[in-house]
């Protein structure tokens, strides 16, 4: 019986194989172009009126800033459809649009509801229709949310337009320097003061739920790590050791901080358990070990150490304390940050006596220099691993700059006043 079954199986296999070889003409496409997608965002209107905040312009700017889209500007549009039934695809084909976003807004008992649709122009197809709701002061959030949805559908990558950035500004007033810890939308809007001090503020790092920050403040006379809730400003001092207390980094699982302490004489990497409030030392070397950052699984740290003679990046497995050197090219690789994909290591790399932001692919080892500015520092990666922010100097002034991880898009984020440093991209 078993043999019979076997026979049948084999017989079927022999039948299937030749069948699969029968096919019509098949053409293989192996190359393409990678141009920005042309997209038109039709004005989202309310009862024919423009809103206090022009949602569609915010969306258009979001998409354009990503570098992956080329918007079609409103003054060139031939019609202003607000729903699918008003769309004449020919109007958009003429303009060369590949995608079209239309939407309309309803206000119901103070709830702002946007119904928006993404359409493919060449095939005249609807990609999706979705609804987003918010209050009157959340129009900007609604816009960023729509940008996220459109970006994800077209690129296949999650959007990061609803995220925020924390950074430190310093302004010289008379002979005093004022330090400010700020948080803003990634497009620079809605800047908010978190902490103001006459003493330096450094190394902000987000909690994984993006509701709290940890940072280093010198307000007590020596560096100390603080934890602060964004919603109510309540804060708590976590460290008060002699010497260096620095470079805190919140673990992706939210349970621990990695930080650098020199309480035993030499900068070493520690973790701090937020629940038990216990410190655990992880490195023990006479060289400097600093700038720890977590791998996405919260099981390992990457950090900078000059134990090999020059600053290089190492990985430390917390469970086994096993240490592995990751970077070998160049004489200076520091300030590691791992993208959420766990594969792209972002760092400051020195080449030809200039400091640039570079990425190293941890799988195939490819090193790429992304920036052409100099004196670049503090890279921080967007949660979607598509872009990073870093601090650099332009005309002797500290500014933030952005570059996509494929180096295709680069732009500066000009500051209103003073120096801007130490950006930290929120994980949400």
């Amino acid at each position, binding site marked *: 019986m*078993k*043999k019979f079954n*076997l*026979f049948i199986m*084999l*017989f079927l*296999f*022999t039948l299937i*194989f*030749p069948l699969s070889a029968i*096919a*019509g*003409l*098949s*053409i*293989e*496409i*192996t*190359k*393409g*172009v*990678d*141009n920005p*997608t042309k997209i038109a965002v039709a004005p989202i209107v309310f009862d024919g009126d423009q809103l206090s905040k022009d949602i569609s312009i915010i969306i258009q700017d979001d998409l354009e800033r990503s570098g*992956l889209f080329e918007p079609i500007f409103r003054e060139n549009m031939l019609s202003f459809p607000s729903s699918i039934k008003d769309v004449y695809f020919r109007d958009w084909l003429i303009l060369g649009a*590949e995608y079209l976003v239309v939407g309309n807004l309803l206000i119901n008992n103070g709830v702002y509801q946007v119904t928006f649709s993404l359409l*493919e122009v*060449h*095939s005249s197809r609807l*990609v999706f229709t979705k609804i987003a709701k918010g209050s009157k002061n959340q129009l900007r959030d609604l816009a960023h949310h729509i940008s996220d949805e459109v970006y994800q*559908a*077209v*690129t*296949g*990558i999650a959007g990061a337009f609803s995220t925020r950035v924390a950074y430190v500004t310093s302004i010289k007033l008379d002979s005093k320097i004022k330090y400010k810890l700020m948080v803003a939308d990634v497009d620079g809007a809605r800047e908010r003061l978190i902490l103001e001090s006459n003493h330096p503020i450094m190394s902000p790092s987000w909690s994984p739920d993006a509701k709290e920050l940890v940072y280093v403040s010198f307000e007590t006379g020596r560096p100390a790590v603080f934890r602060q809730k964004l919603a109510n400003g309540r804060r708590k001092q976590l460290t008060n050791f002699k010497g260096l207390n620095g470079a805190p980094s919140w673990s992706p699982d939210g349970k621990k901080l990695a930080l650098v302490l020199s309480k035993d004489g030499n900068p070493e990497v520690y973790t701090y358990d937020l629940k038990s409030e216990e410190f655990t030392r992880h490195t023990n070397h006479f060289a400097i070990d600093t700038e720890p950052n977590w791998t996405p699984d919260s099981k390992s740290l990457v950090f900078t150490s000059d134990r090999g003679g020059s600053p290089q990046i190492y990985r430390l497995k917390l469970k086994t304390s096993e240490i592995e050197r990751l970077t070998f090219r160049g004489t200076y690789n520091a300030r590691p940050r791992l993208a959420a994909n766990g594969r792209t290591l972002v760092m400051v790399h020195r080449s030809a006596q200039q400091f640039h932001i570079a990425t190293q692919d941890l799988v195939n080892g490819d090193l790429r220099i992304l920036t052409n500015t100099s004196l670049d520092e503090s890279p921080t990666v967007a949660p979607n691993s*598509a872009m990073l922010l870093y601090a650099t100097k332009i005309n002797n002034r500290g500014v933030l700059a952005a570059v996509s991880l*494929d180096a295709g898009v680069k732009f500066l984020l000009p500051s209103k006043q003073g120096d801007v440093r130490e950006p930290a991209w929120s994980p949400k």
Partner: protein
Amino acid sequence: MITKLFRRINPLITAIFLSFILHTMLIVFLVIKWDPESKPQKISAPKYIQAKLINQQDKRLKKLGTKPKPKPKRIVKAKPKSKDENKFQKKRKIVEQKKAKNSQVKKQLEQESHDKKMTSSYSAYITERIEANWNRPPSARRGMEAKLLIRLVPTGQVVSVALLKTSGNIAFDRSAEQAVYKVGNFDKLQKMDLRIFEKSFRQLELVFRPDDLRL
């Protein structure tokens, strides 16, 4: 212990053995099936010459002068048979039929090679048009593969696009579909022989498999 092991292994060995036999049979089957298509022309060619030897005269003989020995035999054998006129004519008819058949085969072969040439040149045209319009999303990676089935009409117009196999990335699939929609009309196909169009181009399978991406 060993016998037990053997008993366990036995079905596996028989399975391997059987599958080996079946596959060889399959290969033999395929090979035999493939062969006749090309062989008949080779076989028929000498037959054609031999047949002419019997019926026609010295001219043919001279041409084959390098092989004089078999010919006399044939002629000798043919002579007694040729007394019977009917038989002779019958043979002639068969020969003529074969002749016609052969020229037909020749024509067919010529046409086939012509068709092949046209098909590959139009395929290259289609590839070129689509590649120029394929705007891949940044999430596209080497190793991704999407298959589309597109239907065309003789004007070159695309009348339908269907996804046969997803790459697993919706944005990638959509970019492939959009590349076809963007071309919209492969207008050079209008010049194509309708016969070739019907044979290979009314329905096309497109395989999108990028090999020029960094990742």
